[in-house]
């Protein structure tokens, strides 16, 4: 494998890690506040459909993005009602919303466009375009660093840079603001937060709403940046992989970045069987490469996580003392 191929693979790593990173940070807010969310997948799917559909109808990717976030927030609100207000089982609520999204997206897309549950292909202003970072062309010829800047870091859509910036932003909110402190507290010991006179329910709804917004970005990225349009089940388990990455990251923002880059790298490898075979020296069936991200996820969960301690109050509905 030569340097140019490596840059190519790392470039698609960044491209594929973007939705994982956004979804992983989404899960981080929710789970740090004590609300498990396996519904990341469904929220992404819903956002992908809404953004793909609205972008196709209006020709504006920004309206699409807004619709995606709104659709994802809707599901997030449902999850909040079920798991915060009615103190239901959070895992089951997540599973239910995933199925709901899986069916509704096809029904709506079929009703709007009649193309078998897809949205029409997007182009021009209906898609996020690739941005060229300043001086990218000027420094391309610098050895090593030139290609890294010009081909790897430059040339992504704005959402990729938003996702990368969301990492320090999340870390800042979580560890440097009053809201972040309270959010972490509500995931560890909601009774203490309640005693301090702060609303547990309010904080948890806020966290779930942030989850909705970030999943909306992730889904919109799928339909309007990574692909050109929505297709049924297009998220293909990314919401679950993001969850696995969250555990791998031990619920920390910077960890989330490295974990999702790793999983993005696995996905990038699965797209390049030629390279994998060249490195491994034997013929590898395509289906094994397809399964690779999932197998590695299990391996990571099984052994290399170290001790991953989830937020203590995670999954437990809070019952106020009377």
């Amino acid at each position: 494998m030569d340097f140019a191929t490596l840059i190519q693979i790392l470039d698609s790593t960044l491209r594929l890690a973007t939705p994982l990173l956004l979804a992983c940070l989404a899960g981080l807010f929710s789970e740090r506040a004590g609300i498990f969310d396996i519904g990341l997948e469904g929220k992404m799917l819903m956002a992908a459909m809404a953004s793909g559909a609205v972008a196709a109808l209006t020709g504006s990717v920004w309206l699409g993005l807004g619709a995606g976030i709104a659709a994802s927030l809707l599901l997030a609100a449902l999850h909040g009602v079920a798991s915060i207000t009615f103190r239901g089982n959070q895992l089951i609520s997540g599973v239910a919303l995933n199925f709901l999204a899986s069916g509704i997206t096809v029904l709506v897309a079929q009703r709007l466009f009649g193309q078998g549950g897809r949205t029409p292909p997007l182009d021009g202003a209906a898609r996020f375009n690739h941005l060229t970072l300043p001086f990218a062309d000027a420094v391309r010829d610098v050895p090593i660093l030139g290609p890294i800047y010009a081909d790897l870091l430059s040339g992504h859509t704005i959402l990729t840079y938003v996702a990368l910036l969301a990492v320090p932003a999340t870390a800042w909110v979580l560890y440097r603001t009053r809201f972040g402190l309270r959010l972490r507290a509500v995931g560890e010991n909601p009774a203490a937060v309640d005693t301090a006179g702060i609303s547990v329910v309010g904080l948890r709804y806020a966290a779930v709403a942030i989850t909705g917004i970030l999943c909306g970005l992730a889904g919109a990225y799928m339909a309007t940046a990574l692909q050109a349009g929505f297709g049924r089940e297009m998220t293909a388990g990314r919401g679950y992989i993001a969850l696995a990455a969250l555990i791998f990251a031990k619920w920390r923002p910077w960890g989330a970045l490295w974990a999702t880059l790793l999983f993005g790298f696995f996905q990038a490898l699965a797209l390049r069987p030629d390279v994998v075979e060249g490195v491994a020296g034997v013929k590898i069936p395509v289906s094994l490469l397809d399964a690779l991200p999932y197998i590695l996820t299990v391996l990571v969960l099984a052994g290399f996580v170290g001790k991953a301690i989830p937020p203590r109050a995670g999954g437990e509905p809070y019952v106020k003392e009377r």
Partner: protein
Amino acid sequence: MMDKLPKWADLVLVPLVSLLLAAVISALVILAIGQDPMEALNVMVTGALGSPYGWGYTLYYATSFIFTGLAVTIAFHASLFNIGGEGQAQLGGLGVALVCLALPWPHWTLALLAAGLGAALFGAAWAAIPAYLQARRGSHIVITTIMFNYIASALIVFMLVDVLRPAGQMDPATARFPPGTNLPTLDQIPGFNLIFTKTVPANVTLLVALAACVLVWAILWRTRLGYEIRAFGRSEPAARYAGINPFRIIMITMLLSGALAGLMSINNVMGESERLVQNSTEGAGFIGIAVALMGRNHPFGVLLAALLFGFLYQGGAELGLWTSIPIELRIVVQGLVILFTGALDQMVRMLLGWLFRFGSPRAA
């Protein structure tokens, strides 16, 4: 709080009201995509229940859902959420295919026994790894079983494309199973053939499924193991204190759960398609979650819920054929049923609590 319901209401009314809510929202969804919900219901009832032919399909789907519903149920009793029924059932299909293709089976009874064993073993093996990881390493079983669903479908594709596909065949599937493995369908069984005069997909596996219901009930409520499973599910520290070994309970429960999910494939792979194709389970593993929740985690409830979902599946297929409502409506209803019975059950109870207080004479 006054919203404690009588036991019968909790057992019967909560699932029924949940179902009603799911049906109302589904009707609104149908309206929203510009179709007529009453016509849709009509098509579903006629297609699924209006003829012995329709019933033959409804019972065929119900058979699969009984197995996957029982699989989720038994795991729920140990507080384990097995979302991996889909993958376990796919592996069960592989077990069935290997057994059926291994020998020229002389009679279907022998083949059924052997294939059932193969299906259960393969399903259980696929559940064993997530179970072990949960019991020993604390990897969350929900995530690992989901990952194993994806790995299973890749594995099946590999087996069908690169290993089991006969030379010269284009589509990724095994060869047809030999005639000695063909299970009698309901129209070939004395007694049933009075009702089912034409060929239907429902087959003798239905009887196996009913036996499985009884067996699971007996295991859970009439054996020491079942007691340990339920005790562990209620409170792990208490069970541990009582000398119950968590590792053993997690492993045994998940092996049973995987075996039940795997057994589903004698219905679809051996009884219906008579060869293994890609995605043979068609989501039945996931339906098991809805069936178990709707059936209140009791084998008899699972039986009723499986019939309901059998109706929904056959009726949904008819919708896809005769109306312009996409077949994915089934997944929407499935999601709504899971939402109301599993996550918003507290809301349904509150709703019923109001009704009860409203209906009963007010205390002075």
